[in-house]
C-alpha cells in the first residue's frame, strides 16, 4: 500500500529538522509536522522583544493563536500541572514553534564525557549511588563521529587543543571554526585562578564550545556581540534549528505548521503508520507514513505516546524526567570587568564534571558569565536606586553607575541530575486550548544532585574569594533554577524491560517508530544537551534510512 509519505516527523525542532534534512537528502519523501506557528521575520521578532515590557524568554515569540492552540510553559506559566513547592518543582520551559527552543538557547555545545555513558559500571556500588543511574547502551566512541558531524552541521566554534582528551574523551576532528574569543572578564579570572585548586581539583578556565559563528559560516555572519543570544540572536550568528528546517524543505521535505498531533494509531501487527492531528481551526486530519519519528522533546513526546497508548507496556514512558540544577551566584569584582558585552558566557571550568566523587554526588560545570547582574535586573535596578534613593543625576550618576555596573560578575553552575523513576510526565486532567491534556509533571531532585549543588555552591564561593570579590551572594541552600535542559522520559536501553527505545532510538515495541531528542537520554552528565541531541538525530537518520530502504525497496542512504 502506497502511504502518503516515507517518513512523518513530529516536531520541527533541532532533532526533527536534522533528521528530516538528512532523510530528504537521501531521497525519502518526508513530512515535518509542527504544532507551533510559522515564524515572522527575525527583524520583526527583534522588534517584539525590543518593545516588550517586561522582557521574557517568550517576548519575541508571542502569537495569540499559537499560544492558545499549542501552548507551552514559555507562553503560559500554568501549562504544567504541578503543585507549587519550593525546591521540588520542574522549572525548565520550552517553545512550541518551528525551530523549537533553539531560538532562545544559549548555544553552548560541550560533549558528554566517556564516563557519562557508563555511570553505573564506572561509579556504581555505593549506597549513595542512585538506583536509576544506569549505563547507556552506546559508548562515547560510538557517538564520537556523530559529534563531529553535528559540530559541522551546526557550526561549532571551539578550541580543539583545549578539549581534545578531556576526561579520556578524545576528539577525532578539530572544530569547524576557531573559538569564540574569551571575554576580558574570562581572561582576568583565568589569570587569578588557573593552576589553583579547590579540594584537590584544579581550576582551569577553558573557552566554551558554542554553535555561534566566530567567522562567516554556512551563509551566516559571525557573532557581532549583540549580547541577546537569549532570547534571540538578531543576526543569525548563533545556530538555531530554522537553519535545518530550511535545509530540509530545500531538499524536498514538506513542512506543515499549526498541526498539533493528537494520536498515533497502532496497526494489528504493532506497527504505526497513521498520524492524527488537529489544525488550529479544529479540523481533524490524518496522514500516513512508513516510518514515524517523534521529535517533540522530553515533555510533548511522552505526552503524545501516552495519549496514543504506545511503547508503554513496561510503564517507562514519561519516567526519569531530568534537567540540570542551575544556580547563579553574584559578586562585585575588585576592578572593572566590563560585562554586558558579547555572548552572555564564553568560558567555563570543566574540572568538576568527573571524578571518583560521582560515586556519592553529582558532577557539575561552572560557567563564567559576561552579563553582570542582569539576572537581578541590572543595570536598571542600579539606575533606579541611584536616582531615587541616592539622588544622583548627570555626570555624578554616570560615574556611580560605571563604578558599580562594570564590576558586576555572575558565576553559575549546572549540576547533573540523576534519573529517578518517580520524576515523571503524565497526562493531566486539565486541558489546553484544543482540548488536549496538559502535562502533569512531578519532579524532586535526588539527594545525589542536591549534594552536587552544595559542592558547586562552595566552589563558586571559593572562586569569588580567590579573585577578591565583595558583596558575594551565593543564594539559598538547595535553591535552584531550571537550566532549560529538558531530558529523560523515553530512555534508551538494551532491554525492553526497563527502557523505551533501543540504541538506534527505535521503540522496542513498535519497530517503525523512532524517538529523537533528549527524551531518550538515560543519564545526562553535566553538559548542555543540544549537541548530543543533534549527534543522536544524525546517527538515527542513518538507521532510519537503512530501514526505509528495506521497506520501500528504494535506494535511501543518509
Amino acid at each position, binding site marked *: 500500500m502506497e502511504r502518503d509519505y516515507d517518513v512523518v516527523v513530529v516536531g520541527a525542532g533541532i532533532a526533527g529538522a536534522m533528521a528530516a534534512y538528512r532523510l530528504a537528502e537521501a531521497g525519502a519523501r518526508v513530512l515535518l509536522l509542527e504544532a507551533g506557528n510559522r515564524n515572522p*521575520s527575525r527583524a520583526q521578532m527583534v522588534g517584539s522583544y525590543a518593545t516588550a515590557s517586561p522582557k521574557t524568554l517568550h517576548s519575541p515569540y508571542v502569537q495569540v493563536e499559537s499560544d492558545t492552540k499549542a501552548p507551552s510553559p514559555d507562553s503560559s506559566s500554568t501549562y504544567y500541572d504541578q503543585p507549587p513547592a519550593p525546591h521540588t518543582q520542574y522549572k525548565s520551559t520550552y517553545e512550541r514553534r518551528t525551530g523549537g527552543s533553539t531560538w532562545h538557547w544559549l548555544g553552548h555545545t560541550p560533549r558528554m564525557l566517556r564516563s557519562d555513558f557508563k555511570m553505573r559500571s564506572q561509579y556504581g556500588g555505593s549506597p549513595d549511588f542512585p538506583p536509576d543511574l544506569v549505563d547507556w547502551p552506546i559508548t562515547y566512541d560510538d557517538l564520537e563521529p556523530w559529534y563531529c558531524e553535528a559540530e559541522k552541521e551546526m557550526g561549532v566554534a571551539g578550541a580543539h587543543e583545549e578539549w581534545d582528551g578531556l576526561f579520556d574523551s578524545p576528539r577525532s576532528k578539530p572544530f569547524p571554526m576557531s573559538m569564540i574569543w574569551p571575554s576580558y572578564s574570562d581572561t582576568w579570572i583565568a589569570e587569578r585562578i588557573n593552576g589553583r585548586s579547590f579540594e584537590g581539583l584544579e581550576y582551569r578556565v577553558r573557552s566554551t564550545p558554542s554553535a555561534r559563528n566566530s567567522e562567516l559560516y554556512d551563509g551566516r*555572519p559571525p557573532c557581532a556581540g549583540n549580547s541577546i543570544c537569549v532570547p534571540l540572536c538578531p543576526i543569525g550568528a548563533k545556530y538555531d534549528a530554522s537553519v535545518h528546517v530550511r535545509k530540509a524543505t530545500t531538499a524536498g521535505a514538506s513542512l506543515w505548521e499549526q498541526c498539533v498531533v493528537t494520536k498515533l494509531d497502532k496497526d494489528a501487527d504493532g506497527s504505526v503508520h497513521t498520524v492524527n492531528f488537529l489544525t488550529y481551526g479544529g479540523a481533524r486530519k490524518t496522514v500516513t507514513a512508513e516510518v514515524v519519528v517523534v521529535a517533540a522533546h522530553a515533555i510533548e513526546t511522552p505526552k503524545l505516546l501516552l495519549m496514543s497508548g504506545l511503547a508503554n507496556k513496561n510503564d517507562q514512558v514519561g519516567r526519569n524526567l531530568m534537567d540540570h540544577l542551575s544556580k547563579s551566584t553574584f559578586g562585585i569584582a575588585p576592578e572593572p570587568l566590563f560585562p554586558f558585552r558579547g555572548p552572555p558566557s564564553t568560558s567555563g571550568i570543566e574540572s568538576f564534571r568527573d571524578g571518583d566523587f560521582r560515586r556519592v554526588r553529582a558532577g557539575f560545570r561552572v560557567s563564567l558569565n559576561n552579563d553582570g547582574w542582569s539576572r537581578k535586573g541590572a543595570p536598571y535596578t542600579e539606575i533606579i536606586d541611584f536616582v531615587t534613593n541616592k539622588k544622583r543625576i548627570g555626570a555624578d550618576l554616570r560615574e556611580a553607575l560605571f563604578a558599580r555596573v562594570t564590576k558586576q560578575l555572575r558565576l553559575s553552575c549546572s549540576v547533573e541530575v540523576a534519573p529517578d523513576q518517580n520524576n515523571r510526565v503524565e497526562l493531566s486532567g486539565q486541558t489546553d486550548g484544543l482540548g488536549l491534556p496538559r502535562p502533569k509533571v512531578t519532579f524532586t531532585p535526588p539527594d545525589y544532585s542536591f549534594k552536587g549543588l552544595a559542592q558547586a555552591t562552595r566552589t563558586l564561593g571559593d572562586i569569588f574569594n580567590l579573585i577578591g570579590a565583595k558583596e558575594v551572594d551565593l543564594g539559598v541552600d538547595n535553591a535552584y533554577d531550571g537550566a532549560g535542559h529538558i531530558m529523560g522520559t523515553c530512555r534508551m536501553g538494551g532491554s525492553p524491560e526497563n527502557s523505551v527505545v533501543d540504541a538506534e532510538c527505535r521503540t522496542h515495541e513498535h519497530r517503525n517508530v523512532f524517538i529523537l531528542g533528549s527524551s531518550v537520554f538515560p543519564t545526562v552528565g553535566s553538559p548542555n544537551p543540544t549537541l548530543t541531541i543533534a549527534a543522536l538525530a544524525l546517527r538515527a537518520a542513518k538507521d532510519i534510512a537503512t530501514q526505509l530502504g528495506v521497506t520501500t525497496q528504494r535506494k535511501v542512504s543518509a
Partner: protein
Amino acid sequence: MKPSRTVDTRTDLLKLLCEAAELEHGIACSYLYAAFSLKRDMAEGGMTWEEQQKVRRWAAQIYFVASQEMLHLALVWNLTTAIGGTPYYFRPNFPQNSKYYPIKVPIELEPFGPRSLRRFILYEHPQNIAQESALKSLLRSAVEDGEEIEFGSVGELYGLIESGFRSIDEKELFIGSPTQQMTKDLVHFPGLLPVLDRTSAIQAIHEITEQGEGTAKDREDSHYGAFVAILKELLDSRERGSGFSPARPAMQNPSARLERGYGADANPIGEPLAQQVAGLFDSVYSLMLRMLAWSFEFDSVGVEEQLKKFCSVTIDLMPRVLLPLGEGLMLMPAGEKYPGKTAGPGFGLTRHVMLPPSAENARQLCRERIKELAALAADLVQRSVPEPVKGACRHLGEIARNF
C-alpha cells in the same frame, strides 16, 4: 590558477610580501571607512526599523572582514620575518589610483554604497570567476558610470608569493628566529599561525586566500561572498523603491592636514574642530601601528611581557579609541567646501619616529607619546564634539594612565 611568473629569490619574495602588507593594510582601512559610515541610530533618518537591523548586520560583517584583513597583515608580517625581513607597515596615503597596484583597482576612502562595495568585491574576487557573466552583470548594475572594469586579483599576488615559498630552498630561506614569530599566546589574534617552515608558510597563505576568496566548494562564507550578498541586498532594497539611506554623507578621501605630505588628490577637511579630531585619529593610528610592528619585529625572548603589553594596548586602541573617533568624525561637518558632507578619518601616515630596538627605550617613547595624545584628547572632551568622540577621548585617557 598558475601564477604568470615564478619567484625564485629572497629579494623578490620580500618585495612581494611588502606589497601584500601594503595592500592588506590599505584595504582594511578602506573597509573600516565604509563601516564607520554606516548609520547607527534611527534618529539619523533614512531607515525603517527593519532596515536598521540590516544596517547593523552589514556593519558587523564589514568590521569582521576588516579584522580578518588585519589578521592577514599579521600573517604577512610573520611570513616576512620568517625569511629574514622586517615587518612593513608603510603605505601611500589615500587615494591610491588604479595604476599603483597590479590589481588595477584604486584604493580609496569612501562611504558605504554600491560604488565602494563594487571595489570590495574586486579586491576579494577569486581569480577563476572574474570572467563569469553573473559577477560582471552585478558589478555593472552596482554603478552605472560606464567605467570600463578591468581588474586583477589579490589572489594572484598570493599565488606568486606561494610560488616563491615553494621554489626557494627551504633551508636557505627560513633564516628568521622561531621566537621572532608572533603567536596567539602573545597577541589576541585568533588564527595567527607561526611561520617556521615551508609547510606553515603555505598554510598561512592558504588561510589568507580562503578567508578572502573562499574555496571552490564554498564561496559564500568568504569576504567575497559576504560583499556580494550585501551588494545584492542593497540593490534589491533600492529596486523596491524605499527611501532607504544606510550611510552617513561622509566625504571621500579626507585628510587632516594637506601640507604634511598627503597625496594631491586627498581632500583636506575644512572645519577646524573636525580637522583636530582627524589629526588625533592619525596620531593614535600611527602610534598603534608602530607598537604593533615593533612587537612583530624583534625576538620575543626576554621581552614577552612588553610584547604582550604593546599588543594588548594596540588591540585596545582599535575598538575603544579609533573606532569611535572614526564614527564620530562622520557626524561632524566637513567644512564649507563640502556642502552637506561630513568628515572622516584620513588614516594619514605622517612623518614619524620609528621605535628603537631597545625595549626600554621603545617603551619610554610610547609612554611619553600616549600621554601627549591623552592630553590632546582631554582638551577635546571639553569641546562641542559628538558623543562617540568624547567616549574615545575618555578611553584614551584611561589607556594612557594604565600604560
